[in-house]
């Protein structure tokens, strides 16, 4: 099914570039700049009205944000969208204007992974407190945290 959607995407948005990832859960990889348009197309034309999960993953070479989408009306299996962000300045367009349910999830990814969502209405920490240093889910974050005894806080 993901294959089908992928082909339709390629057809509908010719200027964007996609990649089809044949894995256990097939996924469609999208360029950061195209994400918003792709998301809008998927919601409005393909009926993917439900955003289930937004996940950030810290790979050695890149950050990746994974979106799991369904269509409530068609009752489909999840469609996985993946988008990469750079290690230095991780920024991804926010999909909150399209799916309001992404609001807290994007805040959570920002909080724990440090990926900025451009266009989010109220991007601030959600689980940790304001003023917390660092983003715990990054691989370079020490397991004990920076605030542990004997460790310097990063500036």
């Amino acid at each position, binding site marked *: 099914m993901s294959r089908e959607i992928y082909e339709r995407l390629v057809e509908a948005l010719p200027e964007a570039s996609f990649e089809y990832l044949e894995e*256990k859960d097939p996924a469609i990889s999208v360029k950061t700049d195209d994400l918003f348009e792709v998301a809008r197309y998927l919601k409005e034309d393909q009926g993917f009205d439900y955003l289930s*999960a937004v*996940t950030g993953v810290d790979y050695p070479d890149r950050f990746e944000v994974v979106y799991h989408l369904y269509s409530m009306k068609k009752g489909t*299996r999840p469609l996985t969208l993946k988008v990469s962000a750079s290690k230095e300045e991780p920024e991804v367009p926010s999909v909150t204007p399209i799916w*309001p*349910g*992404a609001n*807290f999830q994007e805040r959570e990814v920002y909080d724990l992974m440090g990926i900025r969502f451009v266009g989010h209405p109220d991007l601030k920490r959600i689980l940790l407190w304001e003023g917390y240093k660092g983003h715990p889910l990054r691989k370079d*974050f020490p397991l004990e945290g920076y605030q542990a005894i004997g460790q310097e806080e990063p500036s």
Partner: protein
Amino acid sequence: MQRVETGLRTETITVNMGPQHPSTHGVFRMIVTLDGETIVDLEPVMGYLHRCQEKIGERNTYLQNIPYTDRLDYICSMSNNMAYVMAVEKLAQIEVPERAEYIRIIMVELTRIVNHAVAIGALLNDLGCFFTPMLYALEERERILDLFEMASGSRMMCNYMRFGGVRYDLPPGFMPELKSVVAALPAFIDEFERLLTENEIVLARCQNVGVLPPDMAIAYSCTGPLLRASGVNYDIRKVDSYSIYDRFDFDVVTETNCDVYDRYLVRIGEMRQSVRILEQALEQIPEGEVSVKLPRVFKPPEGDVYHRIESPKGELGFYLVSDGGTNPYRYKIRSPTFINLTVLPELCKGHKVADVVAILGSIDIVLGEVDR
């Protein structure tokens, strides 16, 4: 507008409901702006119970994560177990023996009954009942927890399921006990309904409160009873028919008025459906193995999977990334109540203070899962 006419100068007040508040179901805070008794604005604040479970999950081996999932939503540990082990089984492509599937379904459906009974009890507590429905619910819950104890050795933190099956086979004496519990459940639900369903005050307090239209429920990623009370016929047990749910005959309970009262009705209805599933499972359950042999050092192949189940509170999903090692590279929990809370401010605006706790109660949050 009236303010100008009367010439009275009034002010809104900001009240911090929580983190220590009797009806926030844990350490949850709502910054509520009030105009008299009416809610002008509400902002949920969470994270008081944050343990960074996802980071812990990356440190642990796959097996070590199972007891941690118990502590997510500590009322339904069995469902959490199931979601996680099924995600890992999908990752490593492990087949599960049939008897183990049945045992899992039995445990998960019992969990659903426990959760819904407690959720309704807590909702009624929030509505101002002096613990009577809650204690009725807890009484039934005790009997089910006794069953969990027989099977897993623990009442709440069950830690019962394993990759490729369950930890122990059911002990002798479990099935007769289960049969008597299941036989008594319809009477319990009837009693509950007699007490509450037609209660004039329950109707007055719940109907047309916290109305969540279906398109809004979908847009805000609501799941579980919240979504179905808004008239969306979406149950992952039916849509994905994961495990062996396709073998059972049950209905998806939906209601159409989208309010707090309908969420209550959906929970009652789902309890009845769970009893139906349990009755069928009791008849069908075969003899046989309950687990498969796995290598001592468990290393699933590389890749990423997302698996979701219909936990009592909604869609509980695990997104796992494996790099081929002994621990997950990324271990993400898609917790239903955290995402259901996104819609809370929208539901509460314009209602009274008393309604906020009712709406929150109808969403049915557990802070262990919201904050992770």
